[in-house]
């Protein structure tokens, strides 16, 4: 049995990719999910605010994923839950392991990678000190509270102002814990502005910018942390150390795309996004293998994940129909304030359509523009009231601009703007 498309991962990206491909006429689709239910990390995101762009209403995480799961249940898409993908090969074999079927090798005409991401840990950011219990990533704490009904602690310090950390500051407060403060290394928050307001300000939880944790204390359970201010080079300032007693430390210090399968498969990776290098159809360097969602680059809104998954699905549909025509590539490059651009290249054919480019900036800008240039010539400019690293920016590039970039570099940069 050869599947037309195998989707690796049943979270928001995988779900949207599968239903899009199905609704575009592809019948033999399999979604492989390692957890026992579909929905991915959305299942534990019981707060609202999902779907504002996509559905023009505020949904919870499970409500958002349910919209896709319903469409999937009405289709003939096959689903294999509690099934771990061990390997994906360049000739599109998918090696799986499950209780039900043991070890299996499945074949597909096209594969869509949608494995999501994982949280950076204490080890990854190298916080010194003791190694007590009570140190969690914010997502693990979220799972304990929202899915298991357990409290991971009572007196909480949060390091990092990523969205999951902000959401958990509110959630733990609502469950009766005392959140003593959120400490952020950078001089700005990495979370969405609405989360700073709704999760911290509304609950009088202090946000300490330009701060870090120097050391963790406690031999069995966490007893406290030493925090300090940092200078503009992010080095701790002597004399600003402060001991904060707490029994719980939540880390919300960034997400890393889970690309172990992509790496094994030999897919070219972007060192900045930590995801595959892709074209505008989200095709990776291995023909017929596509990637979307947080495995490709970390998104701040699930709405964009769904949108990108639809793009990848349509790419896969075209691929299995052998309809793709070969053209010149325009390489996309971020410079002067732009840290990365996805997709990393655009294939220019005679009917190249306008293409949406996602990008992130290196710091906060007010009243700035993002410009697209080819050979130093500005072909496109879009004004932004505010640009910040925590909120992804996007730019629609029309076909005629892309045409001019064929075989060249399409360069994006921030122009102007107050700091």
């Amino acid at each position: 049995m050869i599947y037309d498309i195998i989707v690796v991962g049943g979270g928001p990206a995988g779900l949207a990719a599968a239903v899009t491909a199905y609704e575009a006429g592809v019948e033999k689709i399999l979604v492989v999910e390692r957890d026992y239910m579909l929905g991915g990390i959305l299942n534990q995101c019981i707060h609202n605010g999902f779907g504002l762009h996509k559905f023009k209403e505020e949904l919870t995480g499970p409500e958002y994923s349910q919209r896709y799961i319903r469409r999937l249940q009405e289709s003939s898409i096959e689903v294999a839950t509690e099934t771990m993908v061990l390997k994906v090969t360049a000739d599109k074999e998918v090696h799986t392991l499950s209780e039900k079927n043991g070890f299996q090798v499945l074949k597909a005409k096209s594969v869509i990678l949608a494995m999501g991401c994982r949280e950076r840990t204490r080890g990854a950011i190298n916080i010194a000190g003791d190694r007590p219990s009570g140190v969690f990533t914010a997502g693990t704490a979220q799972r304990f509270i929202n899915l298991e009904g357990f409290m991971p602690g009572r007196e909480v310090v949060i390091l990092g102002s990523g969205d999951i950390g902000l959401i958990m500051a509110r959630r733990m407060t609502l469950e009766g814990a005392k959140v003593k403060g959120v400490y952020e290394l950078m001089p700005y928050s990495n979370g969405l502005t609405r989360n700073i307001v709704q999760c911290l300000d509304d609950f009088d939880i202090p946000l300490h910018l330009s701060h870090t944790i120097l050391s963790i204390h406690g031999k069995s359970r966490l007893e406290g942390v030493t925090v300090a201010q940092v200078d503009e080079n992010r080095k701790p300032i002597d004399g600003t150390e402060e001991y904060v007693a707490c029994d719980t430390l939540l880390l919300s210090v960034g997400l890393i795309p889970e690309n172990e399968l992509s790496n094994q498969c030999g897919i070219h990776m972007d060192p900045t996004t930590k995801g595959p290098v892709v074209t505008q159809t989200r095709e990776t360097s291995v023909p017929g293998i596509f990637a979307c969602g947080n495995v490709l680059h970390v998104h701040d809104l699930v709405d964009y994940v769904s949108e990108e998954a639809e793009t990848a699905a349509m790419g896969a549909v075209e691929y299995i129909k052998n309809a793709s025509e070969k053209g010149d590539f325009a390489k996309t490059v971020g410079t002067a304030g732009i840290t990365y651009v996805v997709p990393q290249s655009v294939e220019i054919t005679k009917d190249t359509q306008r293409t949406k480019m996602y990008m992130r900036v290196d710091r906060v800008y007010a009243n700035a523009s993002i410009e697209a240039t080819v050979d130093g010539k500005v072909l496109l400019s879009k004004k932004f009231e505010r640009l910040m690293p925590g909120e992804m920016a996007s730019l629609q590039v029309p076909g005629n601009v892309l045409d001019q970039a064929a075989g060249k570099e399409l360069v994006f940069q921030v122009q102007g703007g107050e700091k």
Partner: protein
Amino acid sequence: MYDVLIIGAGVVGCAVARELSRFDLSVGVLEKDSDVSNGTSKANSGIVHGGYDGEPGTLKARLGVDGNAMFKELDKDLQFGFNKCGSYVLAFDENDHEELKKLYEKGMKNNTRNISLVGRDFVLANEPNVNPNIHSALYCGSAGIISPFEFTIALAENAGDNGVEFHLETPVTAIKKGGSGYLVYSGNQVFQTRFVVNAAGLYSDVIAGMAGAGSFKITPRKGEYLLFDKEVGGTVGSVLFQTPKKDSKGILVTPTIHGNLMIGPNAQHVDDKESLLTTREGLQEVATQARRTVPKLDMSKVITQYAGLRSSLETYDFIMEETLTGFINLVGIDSPGLTSSPAMAKEVVGMLDDAGLAMKEKKNYISYRAPYIRMDRMSNEEINELIVQDRRFGKIVCRCESISEGEIVDVLHRSIPVRSIDGIKRRARVTSGRCQGGFCTPRVMEIMTRELDLDMLEITKNNKGSNILTGITKKGLGGMKK
């Protein structure tokens, strides 16, 4: 009434326990922590040293070389995993090279097997990621790597299988002469024994003091380590030391038996025997030194860092003596203690024999201990056979290391009880991958509640008091099992 009571379930205590379990004796082990191998034995470099650097004529030299020679056979019996990958001591200049010559001479006197002085090109041909600016090296082909805690656990499990009784969470509080030997107290509990073997590591001086068996002073020396993702595990293929300095064998860069890359340790005197805290400065020092050996180390691939304590004496050598009648001290066992432990255990048996303990070999002694089930070492066909027998091997719990529920259940039902997340981690490797337990901890805890009949709230990370959870949510299930 025990014939022999061993205090301390580190590698030395467990090696002695296993050696004694060959005989018709009643043997007990008292351990203060919640698991065996929870002190010095759990956090060290995991190196089976070649034995070239011990001062000739010392116990360290003799037991190091003898111990090294035993590992191949031990691994056959106990299946903990031993990779005789060899080691290099790197010299960066002429002065270092002079030190290497001295080391080589020592090695020859100590009867170290397979050592030679080699040139820069030889090293770089075998270890292409080593700093090209090195001068020369001392190669030792008999050195290798093990997991120090898995080795200790394997010794303990085999001893347990052969009837040794382990008492965990049983700290010794007093020792008195009495009965026909000693009365060893742990709070209200009292254990009677003819002989005592003091293998209490960092606390061996305290234990000796309690019995009036000599006054020693253990000065803990801390070493910090950084562990890298398996993704960069292949950066080096053997153990890479630098020319040693006074207090330690120098910062090393080494593969681990599980395929990670590890760097460390530094050496720092501390007063607190429980001080396992890492410092920014210390970790920085380790990283800087290790980059001297392998300049291309990518520190962003570090997945965790930790510290271990060496239980050192001010004097150089191990102390191994029957200080009081029937009371054997094994004190000051720092490096190469792990390597020496099996040879030391054989010698302890000899000492007990000399002291009048009748050694009659057991008829039903089992030297073999089944390895933990490791699906990552199996073929696809073998995995399928396993899953047909038990479906739980098809259910992956730890995604980073691809560890199944079956493998976790296997480690929970051995002769040494496991009650903590770290205990399971040391046996089945769950939570030891790049997500460091972020995804699998809740699922491992669920399996523990079912298999060990524990409540979620009782589950600890490590020792008593290190509970993972503090309570239930307002509308929580109240710890009800799903």
